[in-house]
């Protein structure tokens, strides 16, 4: 151990294990996490003959697929041995461990983070019985396509159509223009063979807005794209080059009626449309992902500040007092200013993410009983918290990189790759300014409600002079 770093550890005023347990949410959680890490790292999947930075774009993808498959094999074994729930999948494929092994993103992440959760949230019991098992076993690989080349957060503007044909009891999916091509979903390019597609539903000549459909993209044996499916990869990006982002277009592709996810709205055999309780239920997946994103930001920031703080304890620079050795850069107040805020921000976001996660689960449970009252509040919160946390996280990682001077520019520091992952989050699931304006729309409405003498939900009650969240 570097003596400067050891000296820092010797003078610590609290028990580090107690802090770790607090962060993990209890001793048992820490033990389980460490056990998972031991198990997985013992497999050696993270080890690379040639560092992936030196591989071509195509080779990077091939390595990411190889690693993702090996990871899945281990998780399957863990599931069989422990028969635990989704935690293994989430933490290994989407969380800290996944990002360590697949540092530039995984082509299977969306399968677990969006495809399966959307099936769980928007498919009927019968549809779930058919699809969920196949998805969990990875008999099929799915992703989720909503954004289009010419359309983003404004989902009413999406152009892909799904027109019901009562004669054949099928939907016809079609991309009428280039701008209607789906653009960006992870795993879409060469990995997934199924996809949940958001399309404007037409039946009996009437448009009923955006609905989710499960569409087969590739043959399950040969992996060749099916007839009418136009599919490929979108090309190299600032970061996340292992995630296999793709584009997708449809040329009058026919799918069976029961491939529309019908938990909320339905189309009957004769083409009659049955309204959902609330059209906003369709957007549940986006809210879920925004909440998960806040948790991810905590992990990336925690990594960045760990790297920069340890480096700052080791690195010595300059000679402010004559005849004295170069001080550790951690002794410079400007350096402390860069790092300490990062550390505090991790804790602030982690606690806020947990709080938001609780709220999300409560609101979703209320929706199942037909209570939609807090849905707009959750939507407004998930929008602005996603926007502010991703933006702050990008700033934090960049500050940590600068705190490491030129060495932070090296890919070997892992800070540039981390920045690539974090800054990507500023634009997906809604670009941040757009999301802030969605929250603003809610706030203006709340203000007008308050002016009209109406009661406000807890997080905005301060607008009418209430105590707000803090009470």
């Amino acid at each position, binding site marked *: 151990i570097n003596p400067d770093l050891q000296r*820092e550890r010797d003078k610590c005023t609290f028990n580090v294990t107690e*802090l770790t347990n607090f962060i993990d949410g209890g001793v048992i959680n820490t033990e389980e996490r460490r056990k998972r890490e031991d198990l997985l790292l013992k497999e050696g999947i993270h080890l690379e003959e040639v560092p992936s930075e030196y591989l071509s774009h195509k080779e990077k993808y091939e390595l990411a697929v190889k690693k993702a498959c090996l990871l899945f094999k281990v998780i399957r074994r863990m599931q069989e041995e422990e028969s635990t729930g989704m935690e293994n999948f989430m933490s290994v494929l989407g969380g800290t461990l996944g990002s360590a092994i697949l540092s530039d993103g995984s082509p299977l992440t969306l399968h677990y983070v969006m495809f399966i959760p959307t099936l769980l949230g928007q498919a009927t019991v019968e549809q779930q019985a058919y699809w969920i098992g196949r998805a969990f076993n990875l008999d099929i690989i799915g992703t989720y396509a909503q954004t289009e080349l010419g359309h983003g957060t404004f989902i009413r503007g999406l152009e892909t159509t799904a027109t019901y044909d009562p004669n054949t009891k099928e939907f016809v999916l079609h991309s009428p223009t280039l701008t209607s091509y789906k653009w960006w979903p992870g795993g879409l390019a060469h990995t997934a063979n199924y996809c949940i597609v958001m399309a404007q539903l037409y039946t009996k000549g009437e448009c009923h807005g955006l609905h989710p459909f499960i569409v087969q993209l590739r043959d399950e044996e040969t992996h060749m794209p099916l007839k009418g499916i136009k599919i490929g990869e979108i090309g190299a990006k600032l970061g996340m080059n292992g995630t296999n982002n793709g584009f997708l277009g449809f040329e009058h592709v026919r799918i069976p009626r029961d491939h529309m996810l019908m938990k909320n709205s339905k189309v009957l055999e004769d083409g009659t449309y049955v309204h959902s309780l609330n059209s906003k239920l369709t957007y549940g997946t986006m809210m879920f992902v925004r909440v998960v994103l806040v948790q991810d930001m905590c992990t990336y920031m925690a990594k960045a500040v760990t790297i920069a703080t340890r480096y700052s304890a080791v690195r010595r620079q300059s000679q402010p007092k004559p005849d004295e050795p170069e001080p550790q850069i951690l002794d410079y107040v400007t350096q402390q200013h860069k790092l*300490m805020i990062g550390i505090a921000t991790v804790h602030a976001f982690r*606690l806020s993410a947990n709080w938001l996660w609780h709220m999300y689960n409560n609101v979703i449970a209320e929706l199942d009983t037909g209570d939609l009252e807090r849905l707009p509040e959750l939507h407004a919160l998930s929008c602005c918290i996603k926007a*502010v946390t991703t933006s702050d996280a990008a700033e934090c990682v960049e500050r940590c990189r600068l705190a490491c001077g030129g*060495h932070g520019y090296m890919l070997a520091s892992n800070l540039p790759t981390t920045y690539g992952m974090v800054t990507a989050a500023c634009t997906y699931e809604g670009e941040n*300014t757009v999301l802030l304006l969605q929250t*603003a729309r809610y706030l203006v409405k709340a203000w007008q409600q308050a002016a009209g003498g109406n009661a406000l939900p807890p997080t905005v009650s301060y607008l009418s002079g209430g105590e707000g969240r803090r009470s």
Partner: protein
Amino acid sequence: PPWDNSVPHILDGFQRVARGKISLCVANIEKRQKSGLCYEDAWNLTSVQLANASEAHCRLILLSTYYSETQTLSQNLSPALRQVLTLLVELYVVYWALQRVGDLLRFTSISERDIERLQRCYEELLARLRPDAVALVDGFDFRDEILHSALGSYDGRVYERLMDEAMKSPLNAKPVNDSFHKYLKPFMQGKL
């Protein structure tokens, strides 16, 4: 109310900022509508302020959640750890107060002297947290394989690891790269 630099009071200040900004947005939209603009155009012209108000609302939520959750959850912790976590909350709240000092001046009774005190308080908090900096990040409990960084490894052997990583560069496989014979040498000899 007169300003004081306590965390609850700063949070009250952030509440006033968020409320004030949203109120101004609504007033501006209404004013623009009265001048003959439709709601959509009035909204668009006010959108920079609206995004700003939304951010202020979110800051308030993040700051107050961090404060209240830490107060609740740290009750069962040892006094030493609770103390450090409380300092971090204070640091975070004071930092954002200093970052948004213009807003506080606009919407609360904060004075020049209060701001000076806040700045001093911030610097004192940094000094108090300095001895625990490394322990605080050790608490995140990242294994080296997960951190994947030459600069951040637990043992602090930064320079050795940077050199090890440098040696993995494909350009270090041979002492003389082919491009020397192909381009550089002919170029230097004027034969390219």
